[in-house]
């Protein structure tokens, strides 16, 4: 625990680098693409559109009276943040080998900056979400104040997964191929395009082990229904997320000195 505190202190000293690197990630990502930051909006929007066509016209998915587009976009938006963070964050150490082998700085800056950049995308895409809420004349509930709590839990989970994944990729390049597949499976194992209530009761205990279940259902509860999130799911998600974060960070720092030799 003491060493974790020291590591965070050292990271804090390098916070300037974190911001500069995150800004760099955002700039480099959109600098030479035609749509620029528009991609941040287009990507979740396109998925939502596609799922709307499939799941409200072809197959009917129950949404508790919420229009399907807003139902799925409420979860698609944070899911995109999660997925983008992982797919960009995991490759940051290996992708910046010229930096890692030539200059010293706390290595977690690189994956964290990727997450920060994905968060910028998330904020931009959230503007569309606000427009959608107005368009569908959704009421604003006081439970929206819980939003930062849910985002914090989601970020803890994201950071844990990205730290483990990015350090793991240094040792096993197989992870590069595992990430897209894993994210695809994880998407279907999470209540993004369907509600969690569709999962049969006898499987709920297993289903709830996926921390994204508690988090995504939490977003729907506070934003679309004005209800508090289900306590048991939220506690499970919080525990798993923070354990992953702490274990992930500790392991990352333990193997960090070998990065420069292995990359």
């Amino acid at each position, binding site marked *: 625990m003491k060493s974790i505190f020291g590591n965070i202190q050292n990271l804090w000293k390098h916070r*300037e*680098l974190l911001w*500069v690197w995150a800004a*760099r990630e955002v700039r480099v990502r959109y600098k030479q693409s035609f749509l620029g930051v528009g991609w941040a909006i287009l990507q979740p929007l396109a998925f939502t559109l596609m799922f709307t066509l499939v799941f409200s016209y072809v197959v009917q998915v129950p949404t508790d009276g919420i229009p399907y587009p807003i139902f799925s976009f409420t979860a698609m938006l944070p899911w995109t943040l999660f997925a983008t963070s992982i797919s960009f964050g995991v490759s940051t150490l290996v992708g910046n080998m010229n930096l*890692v082998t030539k200059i*010293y700085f706390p290595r977690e800056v690189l994956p964290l900056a990727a997450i920060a950049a994905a968060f910028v995308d998330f904020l931009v895409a959230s503007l569309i979400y606000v427009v959608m809420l107005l368009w569908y004349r959704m009421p604003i509930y006081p439970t929206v104040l819980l939003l930062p709590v849910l985002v914090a839990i989601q970020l803890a989970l994201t950071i844990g997964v990205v730290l483990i994944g990015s350090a793991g990729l240094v040792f096993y390049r197989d992870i590069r191929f595992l990430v897209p597949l894993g994210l695809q499976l994880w998407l279907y194992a999470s209540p993004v395009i369907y509600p969690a209530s569709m999962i049969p009761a006898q499987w709920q205990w297993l289903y709830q082990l996926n921390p994204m279940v508690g988090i995504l259902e939490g977003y729907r509860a506070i934003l679309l229904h004005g209800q508090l999130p289900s306590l048991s799911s939220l506690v499970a998600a919080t525990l798993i997320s923070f354990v992953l974060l702490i274990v992930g960070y500790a*392991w990352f720092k333990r193997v960090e000195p070998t990065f420069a030799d292995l990359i």
Partner: protein
Amino acid sequence: MLRDNTIRLEQVGKSYRLGTMPSLRERLAKKSALPGANPQATNGQTLWALRDVDLTISPGETVGLIGPNGAGKTTILKLIAGITKPTTGTMYVKGRVSSLIELGAGFHPDLTGRENVYLNGAILGLRHRDIESLFDRIVAFAELERFIDTPVKRYSSGMYARLGFAVAAHVSPDILLVDEVLSVGDASFQRRCYEKVWDLVHEEGRSVIMVSHGFGYIRALCNRVVWLQRGQVQQIGEPDAVIRSYESKVFSNAALSPNATGAETDGQVQIVSVTLLDNDGSPATDYGVGDAVTVRIGYLCAPGVSGLTFAVGVMRDDTLNCYTSYADECGFFLPADQPGGILEACYAELRLMPGSYQMYVTALSSDERRTVYTYRTVGFHVVADKGFDIRHGSFLNVPKWRLAAPQEGADA
């Protein structure tokens, strides 16, 4: 007692695994522990890049690392920079380290020079406003005012080196590590770099550790030199002494005797001997900056070779051609059908700065083709002399001073 040391390495060793990492499949097959649990566990070969290195560096010291490729010079820099950790031994580094280990490391090719300055400053732990206040000085030092808003992928390697050094040297590091990257810049930039290093050490009391094959600069700037050989410290001490024993090892003993070594001759013309003689006419390898030197050349020439002439020249250890002169261009012609003899070329003054040099003697045809028959080289030193070092230039040329027209006093 620890407080006085900026850097201390005790019995430091660093090993690398040769060959490839075991793959996930092999790991699973062997059911070995998680990666990182035991970095030494390997079934392959290990290479010790460094072994049992003891080194202590105090503030205000400039230490040069020399040695052949693969001796562990860069590994030491990487350990001090914290990029990698020692396998054995302990090390202690106090203060902020700024390193210039490879050209353009830390630069992102798609970002402009300006953005990269901020990025590099942030990597070295500086705040935005600190970098802002240093920005103009960095750009001016690198002489990149016109290109600072150009993406660095369009920079030449010299521009890369200039910007990299400018940032690394201006962030007021406690310890500056410079690998062999400055050789990319042009001569005037190199001079400014070495002046900057000089200031960091002597005005601000920082420590500088540099790797260089340009021994002239090491001699001028460093107060100690470490000679590494296969990962071990061969010798630590005064620059002049260490560089000399290193060179005598590398260039074989003959090169530093007053007698020459050289190319195999094709038999038509042979340079039998080349000897450097000092003012007293005795063979010597060490000279003062303004000493006279005589190059004595013994040669044999087969009958039928016509138009033979000789050239003598001096080359510094960093391959700078200091001067070369051809006997025939100096108005000296060998008699035709001369079967051989002893030639002498006398320099009244060497006019060289302290350093290691090679005297080249070449036998060649005096026609326009300048066909080389054979050549020989002999190494010599110009020894350090107070007041003369490489920061004052490459050559010695002392003007006569006088006050030509004194300004009359105000009352006149």
